[in-house]
């Protein structure tokens, strides 16, 4: 019996020739990524208590993105703890206020096919877009990883998510993932790996592939993964990465627990209603709902292409008087690129308010949180009750096109009606 991509990577890092779903193995970790919120402030004191330094400073990447920039002394202190700890542990891969961890990690060339990585954040599966097997863990698990360089895992089964056909104009990876959430629900891929396959995936850019793997966290998956191809190779070469395993793929006789098939040709814009990504339906079901805030941000929804999508809708238009549009580009490099190509100008001329690159309002931490009974439409990945501010706020999820269209009209509308 052959193996899936994930099984191959797990077997390699466990030092065995074969693994089967359900087995528990101990894997050595290639890269451990932590951020300011779940990172040094938690692991620092614990490692000290254990009398240990990190196992290998060169394999650790630290990114301050959750509490940036500091808004009060509590968050300022968290950022300081992070800076001090990185110095103390001699960690050179440190990105302070450079953008959101899941974006910065590949942007700075830390990921490539075949690596086994862990991240101290639930959206760590994002790394799977690059053929990396990357899982999210909590702070105590991460402490053990930082101490030992190892982690136990139960080998997951793999669900194949197969997309055939071609996406229509103004339909995006976000719509694809909301459709998956709507179909299989928050537990639909419980403990499985979602491996994305098919012609639609092959035609997606890296920015769009990252949305797919990022949002596997929303269907309960352990992670998501996509086999490397020329698009991956182009991206990695631009980061000067060498020794890229382009052969990595699932064997023909690999065992998939289930296969979910989708047809891209018929996909409509999707919107998830409050308070769950699983409440996703065709946008037409929510048409006309009034929107107070349109938010373009987070690791899922403010990459360069996301900003360009929004700009395509907003070009020459202005935001509704009753709706504020907030844009928090996912990284400082993205901000620079969007400034250089004119995207930012289009957005700000339409009335967008530019926010720092960081998690911000996505998890209710930074600027842009919602008040009681306010309604927001957002390019972020989850809309749980209370996540973006007040418990009684309502958050809808949609693609950058959909969010930009809502900013103009002040209500949920099909972006294709605006053009």
């Amino acid at each position, binding site marked *: 019996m052959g193996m899936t991509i994930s099984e191959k990577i797990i077997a390699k890092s466990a030092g065995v020739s074969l693994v089967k779903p359900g087995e*528990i193995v101990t894997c050595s970790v290639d890269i451990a990524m932590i951020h300011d919120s779940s990172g040094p402030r938690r692991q620092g004191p614990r490692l000290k208590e254990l*009398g240990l330094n990190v196992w290998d400073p060169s394999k650790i990447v630290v990114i301050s993105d959750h509490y940036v920039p500091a808004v009060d002394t509590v*968050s300022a202190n968290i950022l300081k703890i992070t800076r001090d700890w990185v110095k103390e542990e001699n960690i050179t891969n440190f990105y302070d206020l450079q953008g959101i961890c899941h974006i910065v990690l590949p942007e700075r060339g830390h990921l490539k096919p075949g690596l086994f990585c862990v991240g101290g954040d639930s959206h760590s599966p994002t790394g799977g877009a690059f053929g990396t097997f990357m899982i999210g863990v909590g702070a105590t698990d991460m402490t053990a990883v930082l101490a*030992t360089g190892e982690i136990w895992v139960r080998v997951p089964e793999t669900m194949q998510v197969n997309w055939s056909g071609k996406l229509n104009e103004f339909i995006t990876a976000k719509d694809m993932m909301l459709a998956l959430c709507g179909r299989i629900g*928050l537990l639909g891929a419980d403990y499985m790996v979602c491996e994305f396959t098919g012609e639609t995936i092959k035609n997606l850019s890296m920015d769009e592939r990252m949305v797919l793997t990022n949002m596997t966290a929303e269907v309960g998956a352990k992670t998501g993964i996509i086999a490397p191809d020329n698009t991956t190779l182009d991206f990695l070469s631009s980061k000067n990465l060498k020794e890229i395993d382009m052969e990595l793929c699932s064997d023909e006789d690999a065992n998939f627990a289930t296969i979910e098939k989708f047809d891209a040709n018929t996909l409509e814009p999707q919107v998830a209603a409050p308070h769950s990504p699983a409440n996703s339906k065709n946008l037409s079901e929510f048409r006309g709902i009034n929107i107070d805030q349109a938010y373009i941000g987070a690791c899922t929804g403010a990459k360069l292409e996301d900003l360009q999508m929004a700009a395509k809708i907003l070009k020459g238009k202005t935001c509704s008087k009753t709706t504020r549009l907030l844009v928090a580009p996912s990284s400082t490099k993205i901000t620079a690129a969007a400034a250089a190509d004119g995207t930012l100008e289009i957005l700000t001329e339409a009335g967008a308010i530019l926010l720092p690159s960081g998690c911000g309002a996505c*998890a209710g931490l930074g600027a842009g949180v919602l008040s009681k009974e306010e309604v927001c439409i957002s390019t972020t990945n989850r809309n749980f009750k*209370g996540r973006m501010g007040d*418990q009684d706020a309502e958050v809808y999820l949609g693609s950058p096109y959909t969010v930009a269209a809502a900013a103009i009209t002040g209500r949920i509308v099909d972006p294709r009606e605006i053009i």
Partner: protein
Amino acid sequence: MNFNFVQNLNKGKAFVYGDDINTDVLAPGAYLKYSPEKMSKHCLESIDPDFVSNVKPGDIVVGGKNFGVGSSREQAAASLVILGVRYVVAKSFARIFYRNAFNLGLTPLICEDYRKINNNDILEINSKEGKIKNLTQNCEYNTNSVPDHLLKIVNAGGLLAELKNKIENNTLKTLRFRKDN
């Protein structure tokens, strides 16, 4: 996070909630920047404002499917531990929460009969045998058996305590000991 880990808190009142109890409900983002102790005072407040004032050490939280769904924030499990909860009974758990729980000394128990448990029922748990006694209704439910390596972690008092034991017994190779120690 250092808890005074008290074991055998296996008997208490059931606090019953529904499906998809997520990490934003267990550990609201607005309080994430504070200490786990301060954070725990807001556990579950958006669905049950009285939980924190009513819960006592040994009490048991009962959920439906997908308990702990959402972020990797460990405070979701830590808050319950700080409040004295040692067992969560549910139909299923989100995977990161499941790991975090064991790591912090909280045992998640998968139980098909979770619906039969009423709010305020008194439960007694024997995780080794996989049994939950409902003393109020005078009946017993089965739970899925907990994998051995996870029982070991929880019995040691969590992952760090287990790691400490391993360090003392010299069973790990890759460690770098601090010079200032």
